[in-house]
């Protein structure tokens, strides 16, 4: 650990110095935006060390967290919501306010009430019904890319317009503001403090307005459902409507696009796997699970509600506990040869969408979008690679990402 870090961020007294490791999803080697970087491979090194350790600087605002490395232990933490709470109000507290994003920052039993309300809208059965529209959108975008030339900026021309469009339709929002929304998402997840704050304010104002509009002029969309919904025999409060709207907006904005970006970057660099999936598209469903395992994007954080000794670590009430999906997904105790990407891997019980009651509400939609995106891309674009003289930029952080992915099939 660097000395200046100790000075700016003193270790809590209860953390034994021998449990501290110089590791951070923000500052470790490979986490800053890096040309041709592989941040997921970079974090896998923690598996040479202990199952749990303390990282003095492991959140966006430089706070320390315990780091749980094994999939088995992450499952225990994420399933035990009584000891490890989600109640953090990250979004609101950044604004100096105090309301939870729903259901993300609620604990059971309140959490379950809202999950039950929202689950049917995102169920696997419901997502199957959305499939034709998703496929149509993928085909339209890819056909126009193929017609325009033999290379493209994948994130800008396909991944974002595809994923964000599906998502905006779902929310009942117009397409013409797509670029604006993507910009807000970028600032929110990857911007510095002032940018984050400004983006958060815009998103809240936007969701409040949209909710007000849908109360007056109902449509056939998600926000209309939310403003008309009832829980326990009463309508939702304005704060609850906002908590749901803001979360779903933020959670769906760039997650799927980023996953598609990492997946196509992998295939661009691995021609054999690319050809295998192109010639046997039935394999894509299973392969997409392996790519979700290898390239997950979210660090999951919980707060201890009481003192507990966990695998030898003295976790104290109020401590942050990090369950980074990219770390558990490279656990050799859970996955054979975790650093080998094997598109035919079976029994792939990865945690890209978390374990426990907060399992990603959008996971079924996200999976279908990823599979359809890969299917249509491989069916319509001939063998592609990273364009010579360009380098995709990948980064770590609270949400991992990839930019400047220029694909070429000339």
């Amino acid at each position, binding site marked *: 650990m660097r000395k200046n870090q100790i000075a700016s961020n003193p270790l809590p007294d209860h953390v034994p110095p021998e449990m501290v490791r110089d590791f951070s999803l923000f500052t470790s080697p490979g986490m800053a935006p890096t040309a041709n970087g592989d941040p997921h491979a970079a974090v896998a090194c923690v598996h040479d060390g202990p199952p749990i350790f303390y990282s003095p600087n492991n959140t966006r605002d430089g706070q320390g967290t315990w780091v749980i490395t094994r999939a088995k232990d992450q499952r225990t933490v994420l*399933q035990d919501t009584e000891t490890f709470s989600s109640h953090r109000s990250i979004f609101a507290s950044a604004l100096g306010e105090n309301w939870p994003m729903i259901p993300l920052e609620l604990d059971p039993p309140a959490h379950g009430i809202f999950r039950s309300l929202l689950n*049917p809208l995102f*169920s696997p*059965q419901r997502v199957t019904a959305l499939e034709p529209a998703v496929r149509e959108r993928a085909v339209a975008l890819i056909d126009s890319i193929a017609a325009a030339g033999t290379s493209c900026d994948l994130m800008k021309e396909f991944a974002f317009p595809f994923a964000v469009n599906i998502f905006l339709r779902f929310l009942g929002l117009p397409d013409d503001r797509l670029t604006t929304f993507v910009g807000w998402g970028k600032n929110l997840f990857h911007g510095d403090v002032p940018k984050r704050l400004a983006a958060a304010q815009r998103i809240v104002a936007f969701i409040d307005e949209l909710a007000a509009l849908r109360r007056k002029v109902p449509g056939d969309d998600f926000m209309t459902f939310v403003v008309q919904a009832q829980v326990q025999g009463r309508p939702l409060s304005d704060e609850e409507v906002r908590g749901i709207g803001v979360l779903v907006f933020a959670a769906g904005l760039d997650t799927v696009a980023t996953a598609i970006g990492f997946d196509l970057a992998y295939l661009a660099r691995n021609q054999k796997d690319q050809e295998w999936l192109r010639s046997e598209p039935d394999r894509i469903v299973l392969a997409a699970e392996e790519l979700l395992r290898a390239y997950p994007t979210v660090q999951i954080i919980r707060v201890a509600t009481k003192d507990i000794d966990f695998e030898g670590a003295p976790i104290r009430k109020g401590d942050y506990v990090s369950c980074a999906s990219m770390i558990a997904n490279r656990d050799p105790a859970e996955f054979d040869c975790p650093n080998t990407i094997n598109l035919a891997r079976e029994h792939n019980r*990865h*945690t890209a969408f978390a374990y*426990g009651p907060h*399992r990603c509400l959008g996971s*079924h939609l996200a999976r279908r979008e990823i599979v359809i995106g890969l299917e249509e891309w491989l069916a319509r674009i001939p063998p592609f690679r990273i364009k010579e003289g360009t380098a995709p930029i990948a980064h770590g952080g609270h949400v991992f990402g990839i930019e400047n992915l220029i694909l070429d099939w000339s």
Partner: protein
Amino acid sequence: MRIIVHNTKCQGHARCWAHAPDIFKLDDEGYILPGDIKVAEKDERLASQGARSCPERALVIDLTAAA
């Protein structure tokens, strides 16, 4: 073969259902229906694949039970 279903552990990942929608039936929210599942001999392979795909370990394979 029988699959023991621990409903309280199910978090609706629907991985079991993705393997075998006719064996692992979901409710309207996308979570597994309550009750252990009796598996016919011809379905055993598919059923055990589905059970072993559950990220939460909500499905336990019981080989002692005859179908």
